C-alpha cells in the first residue's frame, strides 16, 4: 500500500484524470468523504467522456440513443444508489447519489429515473453528440453489425431489423462479443 488517502479505478490513459481528481479532492479537502471522492472521480470521467465508454455521447444503442448506468456505495453504512438506462441526463453518478440520499430505494431505471433526476435539480437534455450519431449511422450502413439479437428473423448477423423471434434452442447459451461495457 502507498498509504492513505487512496484512490483506485479501472483503466489508465484518460481515466487517470478521474484518479487524480478524486485523490486531490481528498488531499485538498474539497471532498469531505470517500463517498464525495468517488463521485468527484466518476463525474470527472463523465464530463471528459474518458475513452468514450463513460458519459454523454458514447455507446449509442440500436436507436442511436446514449443511455447511462451508474452506482455509488458507502462502505461504512452499506447505503447504495444506482440508475440504469438513464435517459437524457449527463450526470449519472450524481443522480445515483441522489437515489441513495433521497430515497429508500437502491435502483431507479429509464424514464422514471430521468423524472427523478429532474425533480432533484438535474438538467434534462439531448446527450447524443455528432460522433455518437455518426457511429450509429455507420453501424446501420454496415448492416447493423455487430449485433446482439439472436434467434430472430431476419438473421441479425447479416441484417438490420425489425426482427421477429424464431424457435429457441435452450441447450446452448448465447454469448456474443459485439461490444462491452
Amino acid at each position, binding site marked *: *500500500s*502507498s*498509504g*492513505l488517502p*487512496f*484512490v*483506485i*479505478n*479501472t*483503466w*489508465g490513459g484518460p481515466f*487517470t484524470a*478521474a*484518479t*487524480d481528481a*478524486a*485523490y486531490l479532492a*481528498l488531499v485538498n479537502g474539497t471532498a469531505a*468523504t*470517500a*463517498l464525495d*471522492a*468517488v*463521485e468527484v*472521480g*466518476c463525474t470527472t470521467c463523465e464530463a471528459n467522456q*474518458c475513452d468514450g*465508454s*463513460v458519459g454523454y455521447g*458514447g*455507446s449509442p*444503442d*440500436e436507436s442511436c440513443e446514449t443511455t*447511462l*448506468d*451508474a*452506482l*455509488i*456505495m*458507502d*462502505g*461504512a453504512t452499506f447505503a447504495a444508489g*444506482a440508475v*440504469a*438506462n438513464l435517459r437524457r441526463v449527463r450526470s449519472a*453518478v450524481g443522480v445515483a447519489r441522489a437515489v441513495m440520499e433521497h430515497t429508500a430505494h*437502491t*435502483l431507479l*431505471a429509464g424514464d422514471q429515473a430521468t423524472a427523478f433526476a429532474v425533480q432533484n435539480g438535474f438538467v434534462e437534455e439531448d446527450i447524443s453528440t455528432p460522433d455518437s450519431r455518426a*457511429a*450509429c449511422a455507420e*453501424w446501420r450502413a454496415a448492416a447493423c453489425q455487430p449485433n*446482439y*439479437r439472436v434467434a430472430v428473423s431476419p438473421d441479425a448477423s447479416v441484417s438490420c431489423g425489425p426482427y421477429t423471434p424464431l424457435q429457441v434452442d435452450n441447450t446452448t447459451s448465447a*454469448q456474443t*462479443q*459485439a*461490444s*462491452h*461495457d
Partner: protein
Amino acid sequence: TISMIAIDASGAMAAATSTNGASHKVPGRVGDGPIVGSGSYVDGEVGGCGATGDGDIMMRFLPCYQAVESLRRGLTPQEAADDAVARMVRKFPTISSGIVVVDNQGRHGGAGSGWTFTYAYRGGVMNETVVVSVPPI
C-alpha cells in the same frame, strides 16, 4: 466503464461505477455497471472492488461481491481478483473482463481476461497516478 474505490484519511471507504454501456445494445439493455456486487462493491471492514468488461455475462457472477467476500476469508487482493475472474473464465472462456480489488489498507491487485486490462491508483504522498497493466488470465 469507470469503477472507482476510494479510502479517505480516516479509513472510510466508498465505491462508484459509471458507464454508457455497450455500443449498439438493444434499447433498454442494462449491464453490470449499476448492479451492486457486479459493477462495484465495498465493505469498509474488508475492502472494495470495481469491474469492467462484458456486462451481460459479468452481472451473472457478481464478481465484485465475490472478490470482497474472498478478502473477508483471508485472500490477498491479488488472489481475490484472480479467483473472481477465473470463475467467469471457467464458464465463459472468451469473456472480456477486468476487476480491481483493494483492501481497507490500500493493498491492491487486478485481474482480467480477453484483453490487457489496466488500472490506475494514487495514494499517500504519491506525486502522480500509477497505471498497472495486467496480463490476461
